């Protein structure tokens, strides 16, 4: 089941080889799933080799649907995601003033979920939530989400009461890493790090194929690694955090935009710069230096095969990402040892956290199918 959910349709023959099971065992399994409406079998369009073609097994998105919620500092996005990772319907809205109070957010989520579910006439099995803060995994308590000014919010409890479904929460960067590992740039890698600049900077780690979660699930605050003694004060209470040099605010400074500009304005400015790499190098030099410096530390500490840069970093000019890659390779002992850690932009863009939240929700669901 997991094989079909993650890697998509494949033939019965391929399933037999990959799972190392007997042909008739696979037939029995697939028949059972098809009867339950979870998969569909079709004759493949392209034939390979001689003989009767092996039937193609396709996961049916409507067979299992989960609700993914991505809570960000400036807005909330929700999506209904079907088996196989297909987004069936989605919605998002801005958070200003009152609207970012936890109770308002929960009420809005419950309302718009009802609309979406009604529109698509599907049944949802579970909920996954991405939160920009430290989250206790066992019961979904948001210990602290500093950029939202939330402290000790029992978000998991509220949402599961409101939606009537089991809810699992995760840190946004941790879920971004999960998404990249399952469906994005880090697919198939056993050790990878995901670093993203949303409002703040966060990071997730895939270690030997599974996400690193830290004690009670409090993990992912890579952006608060102190890189600059005596640097700018950070809202977390420390000074000179990595986030203060490479986060959204730092990008605004580098691009001469007023702090707190909408995300699109930053993306537009970065895109404009992509066309002039010399100017881009000059304007973003300081930011790129700090990014490389932090990444050298990260790579030396965690020794990943690749580092995936997410969210705002995906809009950085490609030439600069290549520069950072080279810089890390020259300066990092570990990177040299593994033959050059790759530094790549995310392919999932802004949806990474949403997809990660869906995968989090799918985990227990797949087990019961």
């Amino acid at each position: 089941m997991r094989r079909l959910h993650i890697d998509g349709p494949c033939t019965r023959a391929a399933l037999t080889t990959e799972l190392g099971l007997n042909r008739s065992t696979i037939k029995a399994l697939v028949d059972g799933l098809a009867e339950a409406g979870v998969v569909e079998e079709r004759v493949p369009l392209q034939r390979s080799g001689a003989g009767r073609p092996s039937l193609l097994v396709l996961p049916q998105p409507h067979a299992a649907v989960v609700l993914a919620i991505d809570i960000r500092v400036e807005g909330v996005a929700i999506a209904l995601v079907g088996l196989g990772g297909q987004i069936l319907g989605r919605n998002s809205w801005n958070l200003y003033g009152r609207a970012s109070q936890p109770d308002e957010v929960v009420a809005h989520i419950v309302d718009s979920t009802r609309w979406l579910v009604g529109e698509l006439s599907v049944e949802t099995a579970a909920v996954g939530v991405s939160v920009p803060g430290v989250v206790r995994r066992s019961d979904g308590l948001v210990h602290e989400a500093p950029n939202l000014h939330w402290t000790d919010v029992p978000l998991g409890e509220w949402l599961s009461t409101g939606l009537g479904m089991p809810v699992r929460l995760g840190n946004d960067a941790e879920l971004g890493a999960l998404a990249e590992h399952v469906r994005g740039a880090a697919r198939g890698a056993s050790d990878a790090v995901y670093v993203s600049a949303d409002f703040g900077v966060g990071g997730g780690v895939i270690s030997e194929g599974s996400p690193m979660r830290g004690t009670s699930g409090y993990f992912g605050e890579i952006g608060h690694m102190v890189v600059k003694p005596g640097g700018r004060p950070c809202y977390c209470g420390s000074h000179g955090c990595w986030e203060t040099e490479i986060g959204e605010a730092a990008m605004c400074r580098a691009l001469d935009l007023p702090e707190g500009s909408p995300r699109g304005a930053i993306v537009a400015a970065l895109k404009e710069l992509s066309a002039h790499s010399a100017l881009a190098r000059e304007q973003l030099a300081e930011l790129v230096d700090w990014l490389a410096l932090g990444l050298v530390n990260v790579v030396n500490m965690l020794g990943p095969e690749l580092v995936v840069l997410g969210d705002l970093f995906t809009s950085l000019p490609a030439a600069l990402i290549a520069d950072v890659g080279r810089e890390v390779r020259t300066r990092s002992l570990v990177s040299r040892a593994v033959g050059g850690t790759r530094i790549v932009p995310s392919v999932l863009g802004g949806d990474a956290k949403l997809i990660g939240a869906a995968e989090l929700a799918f985990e227990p669901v797949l087990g019961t199918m």
Partner: protein
Amino acid sequence: MSSDPILEIKGLNKSFGPVHVLHDVDFTVRAGEVTALVGDNGAGKSTLVKCIAGIYGHDSGTVTFQGNEVHIRGPKDAAQLGIEVVYQDLALADNLDIVQNMFLGRERGSRWMLDEAAMEKAARETLASLSVRTVKSVRTPVASLSGGQRQTVAIAKAVLWNSKVVLLDEPTAALGVAQTRQVLDLVRRLAEQGLGVVLISHNMADVFEVADRIATLYLGRMVAQVPTKEVTNTQVVELITAGRSGELGLARPDTVTI
């Protein structure tokens, strides 16, 4: 440079015969932001959009696009600059499929043979880049799509043509709640990709949920253009109905000459 507006209109005037529809309208669109254009019926919202799109000429005023003054004389000029308009009555051809609609009038290929494969691929990539996965096949005739899906196709067309500014004239007027939400979600993501988006809407809740900036027209005058986070719902409603709210909007009536 980058914080300059992508499209700036200054002192725009437009009359239809004796009726003065737009009075010295100033309007700016910034890349990466959703600017909501609100106003009562007949305030001049659609006229303003049609002036920008080149459907109507204007009597006086300047239009600056990416820092250069431009003269838009027809819809072709606007399209060439990268200004795309999505109308509420959905300018799609029912009998054609999604690919054909997206490339309508701008087909790829030689004079004798259309490059269907390339067009289909481009259409599919564009829809994927907007993570629109609600459409099963890009070869579905548009007639069989729901209202929300049709709007999605119309909006995706703007992305396919590398537009820099997209003007949406009440894109959700004919849609139900859930479909409206899906279209607005797409509008937000369009801006997040760095496009300048103008959204005409009557629904205050929608405006507050997606817009970064709100521009209010009142009887043909631009009374305020403010960031969404600095105003409340009530203030915007006052601006729409009375043309002012506290310090915002038109000056006190005794100083206004009509």
